[in-house]
């Protein structure tokens, strides 16, 4: 009975995500928005990730980086020091990106300022709360990974649509739950996410890439 256990357990803890998205930037003549996360510097690299949104209008050479604790412009949207092992979660281009960029420029500074004033490492609000709030406000359908601790922080209690907008979630500062057609089922305990993602299919764990199965959207 224990014969398969070591392999199963190894997969569970290793947190492997297969078929990750390639880091390919859209052509410079089209507006684009990119959602990335990177692991915190060691020794936190496996248990906590940090998100940033990179935006670039058509014809611009530099990407504008939107995040808590940083920001500015840079040529490479995929790597953001000091964060390690970056993962690409979403790319939007064309008219959708044009609308999203306007929204991010309008919404993100206020959200960032609020979170930087009230920052709290666990359960939030923190940089992942910022990422999730901007995704929802600007209707960018994507989810942050399971080890983006703070992504589901809604204050003492909160409820609403998920960032992918195909599900609902109910959160308190200690525990919460998310149910959705794409999101699957997530249980949140002290900022840690456990669950099953329906699309792309994966088991969600708050370690490594945050999932075992197919890589993030």
């Amino acid at each position, binding site marked *: 009975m224990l014969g398969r256990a*070591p392999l199963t357990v190894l997969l569970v803890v290793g947190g492997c995500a297969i078929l990750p998205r390639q880091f390919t930037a859209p052509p410079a003549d089209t507006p684009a928005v990119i959602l990335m996360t990177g692991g915190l510097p060691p020794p936190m690299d496996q*248990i906590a990730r940090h998100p940033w949104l990179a935006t670039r209008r058509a014809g611009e050479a530099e990407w504008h980086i939107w995040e808590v604790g940083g920001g500015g412009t840079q040529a490479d949207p995929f790597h953001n020091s000091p964060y390690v092992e970056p993962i690409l979660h979403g790319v939007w281009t064309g008219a959708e990106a044009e609308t999203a960029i306007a929204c991010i420029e309008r919404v993100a500074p206020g959200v960032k300022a609020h979170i930087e004033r009230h920052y709290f490492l666990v359960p939030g609000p923190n940089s992942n709360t910022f990422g999730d709030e901007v995704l929802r406000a600007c209707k960018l359908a994507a989810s942050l990974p399971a080890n983006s601790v703070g992504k589901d922080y809604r204050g003492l209690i909160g409820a609403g649509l998920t960032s992918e907008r195909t599900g609902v979630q109910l959160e308190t500062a200690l525990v919460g739950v998310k149910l959705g057609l794409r999101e699957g089922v997530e249980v949140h305990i002290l900022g840690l996410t456990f669950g099953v993602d329906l699309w792309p299919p994966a088991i969600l764990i708050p*370690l490594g890439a945050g999932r075992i199965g197919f890589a993030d959207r």
Partner: protein
Amino acid sequence: MTSRRRTTRGLGATALLLAATLLGCRSLARGGDGFAASLTYQAAAIVRAPADGTAAPPPGPRAQGELTVRLAAMVGRRVGPLVGLSLAGGGGAPLGASYDVALVPIGIGARLHRSSFVGIGLALATTGGSSTDDAIVVAGQAYAELALGHRLRLLSYARLGSDQLIADGLDRRRLEVTAAVRLGHSFDRFIPASNGYYLGATWRGQQGQEQWGLVIGHSLDAGR
């Protein structure tokens, strides 16, 4: 052992831990600013040992997977108060589930080198599931995390106490031990710290059942 003697011993142990904690706090107030802490994410594959021929097998899963998050921290350059928290949940086949939520509000720890430490505390826990009765646990909880050079670390954890069954108030002895070896990296960028993946074994005797299994996990630690 009578219930009164057990209560007296429990109160005595609690008083000792409280005194040790107060001493640790006093040391901290005098200017000690050291600490050691570890955070562990663990997955386990656990099987129940077969019951002897005379007893009917208990209900619930014969084998299950279990996820545990465990935090332990002590304050002090050498000796000081220790606190801990652990959350565990599992499920298996045949269909069943288990849970264990433990808080170590008082304890004492000793930091040995970098983030190595040993400690013991009073654990208050709720536990139960498909194969064990829901119970309140009062137990001694021990931690030992010892670095062997910059890459290897020994992790061990034990809980000895009794389960007070919620249904009928009966006391049942509990002993569980987990030991593992971790291979990882050490860092000195801000404070001494290290992390890595580990592999080990666990054994539990609880409510008349024996369980054993393999554990694998990731832990990170820091101390100064």
